[in-house]
């Protein structure tokens, strides 16, 4: 399946792009992260510490063990600092 993967804030800066289409068979967010980490150093660095990251699947906050079945959009970003 093809998933739109989005990056924000320093995750975006570290990976060097705001979004990309990713062809994957990953069944969970964590598996998708493993595939991305394996690509290049910049991905490995961005995903080095998952406790410093948050993830949203189809624009809802979720956990890294969340399933990806049917997902169209996955976003990775640091803890939010709005307000």
């Amino acid at each position, binding site marked *: 399946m093809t998933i739109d993967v*989005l990056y*924000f*804030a*320093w995750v*975006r800066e570290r990976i060097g792009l705001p979004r990309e289409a990713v062809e994957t068979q990953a069944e969970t967010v964590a598996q998708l992260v493993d595939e991305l980490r394996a690509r290049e150093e910049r991905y490995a660095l961005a995903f080095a510490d998952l406790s410093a990251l948050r993830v*949203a699947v189809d*624009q*809802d*906050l979720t956990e890294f063990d969340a399933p990806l079945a049917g997902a169209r959009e996955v*976003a990775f*970003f*640091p*803890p*939010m*600092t*709005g*307000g």
Partner: protein
Amino acid sequence: MAVRVQSQPFDLGAEANAFAAAQKGDMGAIVTFTGVVRDVAGGLQAMEIEHYPGMTERALAQIEAQAHERWALGDVLILHRYGRMQPDEMIMMVATAARHRRDAFEAAEFLMDYLKSRAPFWKKEHTSDSADWVAARDEDEDALTRW
């Protein structure tokens, strides 16, 4: 439902007056909170706010719906800017109307606590020689345990 996400500045006074004028019935208590760009460490030239278009509006609407479920409220307004701002510019505001003042206050605090840590905004501080993402504060995450 009143959630607005915009890059342009807003006028607190005009928003507060319009919000108050729209309240009908017995909504005698109106609370507003406004967040302003402050130069805490010294040397701040600009605050840049990035957000996640689509998810932002969705998250704010969910937070507003939760507030309506938990308190007896009239209208609620959540207005949040993104983009580049100077010190002293207003970043965001919320407004709540209720019959009782406690409901209006608590709902406004709830909205603030949730949007701080659950709405997809990220702040970056620009000084003359650096640009740093603002770190999330543990106390902001801890604030959610109140609700």
